[in-house]
């Protein structure tokens, strides 16, 4: 039931490390190559995906569907193995194959590039220069593979519980040390992790069935499963195909109910303290109503200021740092929600969240609500990238910090989310502007345009007088000219700059 994922890139020693670890722990060992072979034997065109990555080209629509098929297959195989027994999986970025399981131990192996080149020289009988080129090329391919398959860059640190430096500690030393580490309670299977594994397997099986059925293979789907209740969501452009999904999956083993929804979009609203009557609430609701989107709330709780001894250690233990789900509406992906499950927790600190969620639910636009620590990296990692967010609103966060630090950390969070999610990430103030394009907006734009035109007419119909004023001869005239320029220029820049911004916003260039 335990699952250890090793991201070893293309390192031969990383592979040996994973196999050695599996042997010592008496775990089953599964490699990315085994997984790919199984997928090929099931008719999945893994080769085409690899070729697209190596040739540095975008995936075609057909290949995108093949990618989804492969990812679902990989999840199913790995989770089934993990359900049957303990597994060590090793691949290019092993920790990304299954996400959302809190007990997975995620390890990255690291090795000095020179040693890696020596290994390749020995293994492939290459000269040093060629071996170096080979290592660099394969590394680039792996980075592109990650971007193509999982939509993220190759982060050297984040996302792992442990980074093992193999050229310092060696394979034997590392595996011996890790045998004890694996026994920590954090990485043990629990009834909850078993349930999560079963849900993932069911969701993957449903996705594979949709990919293999001639009625539905042409559409992109996002599937979630919870104790036999399956939610299948699809993009608006696939609406004609998407409606057939229940017919395809309802007969599958383990499926008790199927909810099918158009994944119009979701708005993710991140904040530290929610208010049901504030301007941000109104702006978010307005946007959600306008776009027919559901609102997911994520409450951030302040980070502990003093790091614990565990955090101070070189090993980064991140299991259990993901969002704590509090309320979940039945249809999450873009559906307009009616029913709400009882809250998973009733902590008094979440009263604001409870109130806002209730308000959203009353308006039929509630998605889900969760809570997690206000840590830029963890929040970024915890976001489910499979959800088609149309907008992410970062409200007031890091409230326990000083003003400048708060602004900076908020920007860092928005920047990180912007890198990870293909959706606009805005703050509450920007959102207010985005949806505010009523008559007052047009009137303000027209007034500013009139002012700008008037200034231009005034200057260009009196060019000589203006230039004479700017050619002062006495000290007094010089000071007057300088003062006039220093007042006029910023004023004009602000007026014209605001006008430009407002016009571009009207035509959606922002």
């Amino acid at each position, binding site marked *: 039931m335990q699952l250890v994922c090793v991201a070893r890139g293309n390192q031969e020693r990383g592979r040996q490390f994973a196999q050695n670890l599996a042997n010592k722990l008496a775990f089953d060992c599964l490699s990315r190559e085994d997984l790919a072979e199984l997928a090929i034997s099931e008719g999945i065109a893994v080769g085409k995906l690899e070729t697209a990555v190596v040739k540095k080209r975008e995936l075609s629509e057909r290949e995108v569907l093949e990618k989804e098929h492969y990812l679902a297959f990989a999840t199913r195989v790995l989770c089934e193995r993990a359900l049957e027994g303990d597994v060590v999986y090793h691949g290019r970025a092993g920790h990304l194959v299954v996400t959302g399981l809190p007990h997975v131990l995620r390890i990255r192996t690291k090795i000095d590039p020179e040693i890696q080149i020596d290994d390749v020289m020995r293994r492939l009988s290459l000269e040093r220069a060629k071996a170096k080129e080979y290592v660099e090329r394969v590394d680039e391919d792996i980075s592109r593979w990650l971007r193509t398959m999982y939509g993220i860059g190759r982060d050297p640190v984040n996302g792992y519980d442990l980074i093992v430096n193999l050229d310092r500690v060696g394979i034997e030393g590392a595996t011996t040390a890790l045998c004890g580490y694996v026994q920590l309670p954090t990485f043990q299977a629990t009834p909850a992790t078993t349930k999560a594994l079963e849900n993932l397997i069911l969701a993957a099986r449903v996705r594979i069935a949709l990919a293999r059925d001639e009625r539905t293979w042409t559409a992109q789907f996002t599937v979630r499963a919870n104790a036999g209740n399956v939610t299948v969501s699809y993009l*608006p452009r696939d609406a004609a195909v998407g409606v057939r999904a229940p017919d395809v999956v309802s007969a599958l083993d383990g499926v008790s109910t199927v909810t099918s929804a158009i994944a119009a979009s979701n708005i993710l609203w991140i904040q530290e303290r929610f208010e049901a009557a504030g301007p941000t609430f109104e702006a978010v609701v307005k946007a959600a109503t306008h776009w027919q989107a559901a609102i997911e709330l994520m409450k951030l709780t302040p980070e502990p200021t003093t790091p614990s001894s565990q955090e101070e250690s070189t090993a980064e233990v991140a299991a259990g740092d993901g969002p704590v789900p509090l309320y979940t509406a039945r249809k999450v992906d873009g559906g307009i929600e009616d029913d709400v499950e009882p809250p998973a927790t009733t902590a008094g600190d979440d009263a604001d969240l409870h109130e806002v969620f209730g308000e959203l639910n009353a308006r039929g636009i509630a998605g889900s609500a969760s809570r997690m620590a206000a840590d830029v990296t963890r929040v970024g990692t915890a976001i489910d990238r499979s959800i088609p967010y*149309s907008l992410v609103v970062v409200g007031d966060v890091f409230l326990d910090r000083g003003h400048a*630090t708060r602004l*900076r950390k908020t920007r860092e969070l928005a920047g990180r989310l912007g890198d990870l999610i293909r959706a606009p990430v805005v703050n509450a103030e920007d959102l207010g502007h985005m949806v505010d394009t009523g008559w007052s907006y047009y009137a303000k734009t027209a007034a500013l345009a009139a002012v700008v035109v008037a200034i*231009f007419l005034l200057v260009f119909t009196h060019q000589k007088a203006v*230039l004479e004023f700017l050619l002062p001869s006495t000290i007094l005239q010089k000071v007057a000219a300088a003062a006039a320029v220093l007042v006029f*220029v910023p004023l004009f820049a602000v007026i014209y700059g605001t006008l430009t*911004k407002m016009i571009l916003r009207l035509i*959606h260039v922002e």
Partner: protein
Amino acid sequence: MPELILKDFIVLDLATALQVVLLGFIGGVLSGFIGSGGAFFMTPGMMNLGVPGVIAVGSNITHKFGKALMGSRKHGELGNVDKKLGIYLLATSFIGIRIAVWINTKLFGVADAHGTGKGAAADLYISLVFVCILSVVAISMLRDVLKTSDDDGPSRKITEFLARMRLSPIIEFPVADVKVSLWVLSAVGLATGYLAGTIGVGGFIGVPAMIYVFGVPTAVATGTELFLAMFMGAFGAANYVLEGFVDIRLTMLLYLGSLVGIYIGVYGTKVVKEAVIRLVTSVIILLCVLSRAIAMPVYLRQLGFVHFDEVWDVRLNAVSKGMLFLAGVSGVLVIIFNVVKAFRRQAAIRRHLAQTAGVMD
């Protein structure tokens, strides 16, 4: 020589005015896209239209003042401005600007033995500084693009080296979270001010210096540089106004194009890959440098240092102008192509959303 309306101010017909607006637009797109600069295109561009170099610099630095004010305000809202660092740099940069204005003014009055070629010495000097500094910037940037991988941050070698030297007094800057020697601060401030006053391009030195020498985070370096540029722009503008070298008409026309361009350029940075941004930037700067280098023999001839037929002035200026526009326009076309592509993609998403809304109604 273009027709003059008053002293050294040129007559602005519709064609010239539109060309200045276009210069502003291209400079704005490049400025929004690159994050700093734009002047490297606008200053020589105006010189190619017949505006004397010193008036081109004076009008452009005045334009930069307002632009930096808006940028600094926005960065301030985002917590990217270390005002303490900005104020320390300001003090020394003012001296740098004053030196630059003094040199430019002195050189502007220099003529050859026959009293002709007034302004050519200043033009030559500005062009020379322009070519030297921006060649180094563009080549370093190109090297950086070719060498750096996605995971690498800015190098901290210089920062760590200076930190080890511990040149007292050391000052702490809490927003940028760095400690810097007053001596290093002064040297960087002086260089930034001098370049801003000479060619109107202080950011190309200030931002990299803050990142690589002080170890300041990139966003804070940009925000602080804009804060600095606002005061330097104001100080530079006041100085050039006192000398009678600011053509406010040019400043206004530049704004007309640049503020639209900036928004489009910034939009471009969201849809174009980082490496491509830096590659496009360095190639554009190199072409601008080449354009200025081609115009330099004209100033040398006007000063009597070299001798060739006057007709070559027109030809060399035409080639210089053509190359500058080629650099700017091709760079802007690449950016606009990507912006339009992204815009169409977003429009398609909006249409899907609207259709979905219809289905759900």
